[in-house]
């Protein structure tokens, strides 16, 4: 019986983790003031104690609604990141956004997503301007 319960819980965990996020339903986006590399290890609670700027949801949604999820086996090294949180279905999620390449990572589902190449320039520019605002905090 314990085995069946364990398998059931594992199945639920795996299926939840593999679900693509409906980014259009996200809200309350914030970018935090963290040095590029140190924030990868921060928890959501630690992050939320730091200075932040509110991100306009319509602006970020215009980008991330077009993002494509990477296969589970595909990863990338990080050379700096922007750290943001958003809310989805009442849960606060931490999203790490790479300073290059247009990819980002949802820490809750351990999933990588990537902005299409034709939007990447605008995406990076926009993130950079947001970081400039955060740095003034």
């Amino acid at each position: 019986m314990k085995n069946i319960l364990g398998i059931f819980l594992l199945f639920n965990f795996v299926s939840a983790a593999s679900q693509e996020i409906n980014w259009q339903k996200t809200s309350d986006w914030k970018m935090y003031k963290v040095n590029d590399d140190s924030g990868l290890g921060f928890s959501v609670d630690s992050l939320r104690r730091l200075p932040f700027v509110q991100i306009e949801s319509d602006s970020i949604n215009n980008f991330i609604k077009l993002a494509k999820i990477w296969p589970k086996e595909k990863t990338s090294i990080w050379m700096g990141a922007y750290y943001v949180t958003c809310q989805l279905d009442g849960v606060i999620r931490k999203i790490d956004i790479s300073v290059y390449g247009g990819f980002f990572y949802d820490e809750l589902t351990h999933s990588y997503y990537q902005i299409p190449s034709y939007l990447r320039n605008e995406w990076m520019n926009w993130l950079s301007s947001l970081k400039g605002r955060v740095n003034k905090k």
Partner: protein
Amino acid sequence: MSKQVIRLGFLASCLVWLMGCYKQHPQESAIIDPVAAAREYVESYLQLKANNPAAGTGSPFTAANRQLDWEHAVANKSGGLKSVWVPVHYPASKYIGISLDRHRLFNTDYLQKLRVWQDSSMVFHTELVSYFPDSNYVYGKGTFSGIVLVRDWQDHFIGEYKRGKDGRIVKMALFSPQDRSAKEASNLMMIQLCYYSAGYNESEGYEAYYWDIDLGCEVYDLEEGGHATGYDEAGQYWDSSEGSGGTTTDPPAIPNLTIVGGNNIIGDIRDYTKCFDNIAGYGQHYSVSLCVAQPVPGTREPWGFTRTLPAGSADLVSAGHTFLILSQWDMAGRITRNVGFYPANSASPFSPIDKGQLNDDEQHSYNISLTIEMDNSKFFAVLDFIAHGNDPGYNYDLNSNNCSSFAIRALRSAGINLPFTVGSWPGGGGFNPGDVGEDIRSMSLPTGMTKSTEQANHPNWGICY
């Protein structure tokens, strides 16, 4: 005596005549600095805080929030008249979509300019000019194409024009929705192609709302096989800089209009570094800073591992970063540009090669740096090396041509050969930020080099047109 009186009288007459000549052209002093003159006029006479012009539409372009960026104002000749173009910004810049180009988003901070000009009677006029590019327009390449919307400061409509990639300009029709449907029903030989820009605003503490901007309609008469509303007198919005003769096929009236935002990804490295002057002597100073963000500060670790998965493997691996800050300065001021080298998409030990991509790293932090002062020839040798970073076929390689290798090679191209450690890691090896940082820390520096473990802000600085 009488001769002396005559001489003195003659000299006095000349002096009076010369002063009279000077006084006959008082307006010359006003056009010496057209930007200053325009600013004085706008700040003295223009009602900067307009009365709620976009109420009800939810438009992001609300007059009450407009800020004029005089620092980046430029003067040129458009429509045969000297004009000053002032970028218009809003406190919270937004990205908006435009139906002319569904594959790009545009920053509202870069879409609007205030045009200030004087007519032949030296009377000032102003227009608020909004540029909505179409999919043919690529920033920095060729002439602007898309829709130009012209309003007064209080947002009263003045005119609207569309310019195709062939340079042809048509005046847009601004029909009400009722008129559009009536025309469509009554004249089947006429087609209207209407454009809009739209978005959805949602900000903390405010009720979310939808907004749109009507960009007008283009009318095609199928019987005549062409536009029903041809127009060719909107040249002032596309005229080139002073001395061009004012042709309508020149670059846009704002040749430096940055349509899609800043320069985080450096699309055109030569344009990005064009402000640097290759001048020997004359009080010019040049330096290149090698900035390092170590994955684990203070150690030679090539990777920083964070967040361990249940299976025991780390899912986020930081490689740190190395980038360059290029500076030129003299008594007149400083020019600074940040450049880093990255993969265009991604890289990992399992997939180490990708197309290379230069990036503006002005927002990137670092924990140790080495600054090298050099002469103009060495500085421009570094620039020449960097200029190849975006070349087709020039690849990023996590092992042999990563961000650290690129920066070190840029310095070596100028004959600056510093000893850096080649590290190794499972599956590969090469220069890396961990080793470069520690190498800098232990270096005995010759004259002209300084190191620092204090990070200062390092924004790009200096603009040229």
